[in-house]
């Protein structure tokens, strides 16, 4: 089990010209979800995975995404940053040494659920558009607002 697309993603992003790379859609969703530090329902994602590894374009930021996942999970699970054992335990729960994604099944599943949250927020906050530039501008503003709200 690897990356799964939130249910509404194809409908929403399919309208945007010049944004045909599926992992981009997933990335925009997961980053908003991680910013909100809130996971979505498992049922709100597609049953079939669309990709089983980080594409080369995103390979360089893979660890940042994983780090943000750990950070979000720490807050969601209320793990004190000073609680060394809990943090290490959390890391052990998410990381798989032998996976290309460096995430184990739970880590991927969580990441997918954060993507669901992000998609819902996109759907609610960013008007549908066909222009990639407008989407990016909107997305950037929305992301900044959320991250600033979260602190």
């Amino acid at each position, binding site marked *: 089990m690897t990356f799964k697309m939130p249910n509404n993603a194809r409908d929403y992003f399919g309208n945007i010209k010049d944004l045909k790379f599926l992992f981009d859609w997933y990335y925009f969703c997961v980053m908003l979800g991680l910013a909100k530090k809130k996971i979505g329902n498992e049922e709100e994602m597609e049953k079939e995975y669309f990709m089983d590894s980080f594409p080369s374009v995103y390979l360089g930021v893979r660890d940042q995404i994983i780090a943000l996942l750990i950070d979000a999970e*720490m807050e969601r699970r209320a793990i004190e*940053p000073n609680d060394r054992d809990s*943090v*290490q335990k959390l*890391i052990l729960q998410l990381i798989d040494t032998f996976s290309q994604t460096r995430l184990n099944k739970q880590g991927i599943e969580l990441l997918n659920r954060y993507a669901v949250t992000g998609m819902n927020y996109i759907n609610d906050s960013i008007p549908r558009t066909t222009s990639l*530039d407008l989407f*990016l501008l909107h997305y950037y503003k929305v992301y900044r607002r959320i*991250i600033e709200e979260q*602190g």
Partner: protein
Amino acid sequence: MTTTEQTYYVVLNLDYKKGKAYYQTSKVSVVHGGMEEGFLLPSEVRSMLSKEFVKRFIFDGELANKILTSSSKEAEEAITYLYQLNKISELDLVADRIVESAQQGQKATSAKTENSLRRFVSERNSYLGVKTALQKKEQTLKNMLKDKEGRVQEIKETISATIRENNHFKEELVVIEGNIIQCERKVVAQTSSVLNLIRNPHLLHPLTTKRLTDLASQMQILKLPKTMSKQFFVELSEQDFCICGRPLSPKEQNHIREVSETYLAEDQIGILNAIKATVLSSVYSDELEKEISELDTASQNFSNAKKDKDRIKVRYNADESNNSTINLDNEQIRLEKEIGEIKKHLHVLTTKNRTEWNRLDPSENIFFCEDKLNDLNIKIAALSNTLSLIEQKKIFSSYLKRIEKEALLLLKSRIIQETQDKIKRIIKNEEIQIESIDGHIKLKDKSGASEGQTLAIAYSFLGSLFEGAAHKLPFVVDSPAGSLDLSVRREVSLILPCLFSQLIIFITSGERKAFTDYFYTLGENEVKFLTVYRSPGSKRAQCIEGVEMFSRFQESEEDIV
């Protein structure tokens, strides 16, 4: 013959050998004088020398009887011809010929003339109506033509202005569209740049970077991953002694083995270190923010450029203009077609080309109609003139008849009076009165007269006739005393010279008695005595002038010719 202006000599040549007779006329004149072939008296004289006229002054005895004969019209005809009243009737004939000539010109009789005139006038009135209608139609068509040509001109100017505006619009549009393309390119480039940068989480927001760096810092603080790996404790639990030298019982070995599970494996430590290293190296920069800002600007510029294009389109109302130009084009085509039709109609209406008239009716062309009207006017005028001429001729004829009648009555009255006076002087032993001249001389209370009285009345009548005549003509009389009594002869001889200013008398030797005595007394200055005779055996006649020969001719037996 001597007229007031000229003396003529007329020679009648009788060529018995050839069986021919011909005249020669001689006159004295500086120009055209001398002898010429033909009877060349002036027309004025020639017209008098008609048979009917001449026999009135070349008198014979029979004429005298006719003057008094009730079945004869000689007396009246004598007046008519001597005073040339017949010329008045002839004038009527001349007028007739003029009318006939005019009618022949029209090839019509009077009745036909009137019918034709009515028909032509009716036809002319009809064509006058047609002409008015055609002229009205021409004016209407010209007005329509003017309106439509004016509208075409307007359309051309509007289209021209629209094209100019469109050209200006197109020029602006080219600039704007160029700008749009540039903006779009900028947007595309900037979008691509933003997309590449936005794929980096640490560039999204400083707080994101902070989250990452905070996590990495915390891991540093917590010394995560632990330097001791799981493998170390697993291996230690399998040893009998700890690394500190103390012995390890199975209990202690199990504990170490359990605790080892809380330690990361070496590969996990490596990953975690790699993550920590990556996160620690994640430094925020405003690169994405700047690119976003530029994208925002580019996007707004792009949007504005598109709005500019829309505004220009609205300003020039390009679509409507194009539609309106198309509509105007269609209207112009329609109008030009209509103008062509109107010009065709006008041409038919106004062409002066007579060849084209062959294909037309006068009711279709103004000038053809006018031509027809002119033709009718000429016919009507000609017919009107003919009719007028006929009417005038009728009046003229009535005047002529009246003039002739009145003239005859007046002449008769005068001649009766003068004849009466003369008769009184000639016939003294019996009162003879003329009652009237009605064809012949009608005597009052007498059915007839003796031969002498008849001659006396005739001479008196003729004398009176010649007195008032316009021309002084010689009176020529053959055997004037013929069967008269000697006493009457004397009276006649006395009266005859008084009746005529020039008297030519032919008598035979037997008629001299009681007739010539008076003439002898007048002398040879007044009377020319000519004796014409041909001697036996001689081929030529002789004419001897003188009273002596005249008075003695054939007095003795040897003088008998």
